[in-house]
């Protein structure tokens, strides 16, 4: 019984702030406080009209999509190598490329800023953000794809070649369909991480801010707080949908390969 109370308290602690988001997003008052004033959708209407916001969203989507593709490509290479080949220092190397997973983002952000501006002498742009996001998303991609590749029987590609296919078409016809759910799952998660990421984007963005950076800018104006709540609601909903799809695909991939689910990444 006490365990149940603990569990409920824990869930409230965890999710209460998120539940507050939609409540105040639909509240007809500029001040974020109880009691609620009434139902409105005007904050969402305000979202639709802000040009600067639209530019920031477009920016973020472009960065997130590019990051998702690049991080997943790197993840495929690393996971395939880790699953199929033996090479010296394998454990050390695999551990090292997973390191960004535990590095504080503020450290990554500051170091990258120094590297880009001071050492490489480059201007800040969307590409600097993409490079940094690939760095922090790749370990997630590897973690997801590792599962997909480790479940593959290495004889499978050989069997396809034995039956007359070239090395590339063996990969395309056998390996690719089997790891495809992992690839999509990895892209979705990298996309979500990049879309939500603030600290690195804040340090490395050039003239055009990303959406989280733009939201942070809005916070200086108390009048626009409910608009931020509305935007936050949309983002949370989108994240939940994407992560759910990613998990469903991961499970489907395991079922298709006929292996037991050993607990997923999520």
């Amino acid at each position, binding site marked *: 019984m006490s365990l149940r109370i603990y569990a409920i308290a824990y869930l409230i602690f965890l999710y209460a702030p998120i539940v507050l988001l939609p409540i105040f997003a639909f509240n007809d008052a500029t001040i974020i406080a109880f009691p609620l004033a009434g139902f409105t959708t005007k904050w969402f209407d305000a979202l639709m009209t802000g040009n600067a916001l639209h530019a920031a969203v477009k920016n973020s989507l472009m960065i997130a999509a590019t990051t998702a593709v690049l991080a997943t490509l790197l993840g495929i290479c690393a996971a395939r190598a880790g699953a199929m080949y033996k090479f010296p220092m394998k454990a050390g190397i695999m551990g090292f490329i997973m390191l960004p997973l535990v590095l504080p983002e503020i450290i990554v952000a500051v170091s990258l800023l120094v590297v880009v501006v001071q050492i490489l002498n480059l201007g800040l742009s969307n590409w600097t953000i993409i490079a940094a996001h690939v760095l922090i998303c790749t370990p997630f991609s590897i973690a997801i794809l590792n599962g997909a590749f480790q479940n593959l*029987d290495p*004889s*499978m590609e*050989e*069997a*396809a*070649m*034995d*039956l*007359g*296919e*070239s090395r590339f078409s063996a990969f395309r016809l*056998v390996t690719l*369909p*089997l790891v495809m759910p992992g690839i999509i799952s990895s892209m979705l998660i990298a996309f979500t991480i990049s879309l939500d990421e603030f600290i690195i984007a804040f340090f490395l963005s050039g003239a055009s801010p990303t959406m989280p950076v733009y939201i942070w800018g809005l916070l200086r104006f108390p009048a626009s707080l409910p608009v931020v709540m509305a935007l936050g609601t949309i983002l949370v909903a989108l994240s939940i949908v994407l992560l759910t799809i990613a998990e469903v695909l991961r499970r489907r991939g395991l079922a*298709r*390969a*006929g292996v037991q689910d050993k607990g997923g990444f999520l």
Partner: protein
Amino acid sequence: MTSLITLKGVNKYYGDYHALRDIDLTINEGEFFSLLGPSGCGKTTLLRTIAGFESVSDGVVMIGGKDMAGVSANLRPTNMVFQSYAIFPHLSVAENVAFGLRKRSDLDKAAKQALVDDALDMVGLGGFGARAAHALSGGQRQRVALARALILKPKVLLLDEPLSALDKKMREQMQVELIRLQRHVGITFILVTHDQEEALVMSDRIAVMFEGRIGQLDDPETLYRRPNSRKVAEFIGKMNFLKADVKAVGDVIDLDVAGLGKVRVAAEQAPEPMNTGPAVAGIRPETLAVLFDGETTVRKLVDGVVDEVVYYGDMTYYDVRIAGVAQPLNIAMKNLIGRPVLEVGEKTRVVWDERSLVVLR
């Protein structure tokens, strides 16, 4: 018999490791050929060399008279059944079996379907085509792997420990089915196995391999009755080894055998070349017998004491100690009607015959 596969002076190195050493081998058309040996002896490497998954460091592999150097696995007239079966889990049974027909543009859809149905019927999986491959049992996967490989009508079917993942009963059933299948299709089968019984049951000829070399190549009966080395004798079945001293070699061989005394055997009971001097005499447990009370024999007898009794139901294995030999003789007796089971410590007499001896160095 025409030869189909010829290996000449084949060597394979992995870095410093010498996996195959000077393999010379000819495998005939329509033959059921086995590569038998302990793990790490190179038998799977040899199979993969024939399949085209491994290149040879040195030497020639010919299939059907053509040198296979530079010919990759997908272009060789061989197909393989993998140890893990490597069934494609995202495809149905029929799609798995039809996989090799993808490149056959001369066949229309109906013709391919007919071939798939025939192949599935042949392995006893008629009507299973629509099933998901990952929902099959071990034995069924095995059959799908066979149908998938045989549908291409290869010159050679390579089987890499195909039965090792099955339980004992299923394995024995599949052994019989594989033999029947091989006779039916008439394709050369090359089987890799570490199970000596499996090799004996299934093969026309067996190559026993140790440390990258072929130790002996013979038909199952010769291999069992006339092993050419102590290693082969130990690997295949059980054998008692007695110290011996070869006195004279000619049309017959005269030798002193510890515990048995002076023995004369035919020349073919020893591998060529046999010299005088120290040797071992080998004798199989089932060619010895204990003499029960009331039984008589015209064969030779030696006195002994029962040291150990292992009862198997249909058989009883005795360890019998005889004078002058440190290691007790292992004797296999069928539990026929009326035969008692001796007890440890009982005195008995062991029946033996010099015709079942082999002389080894």
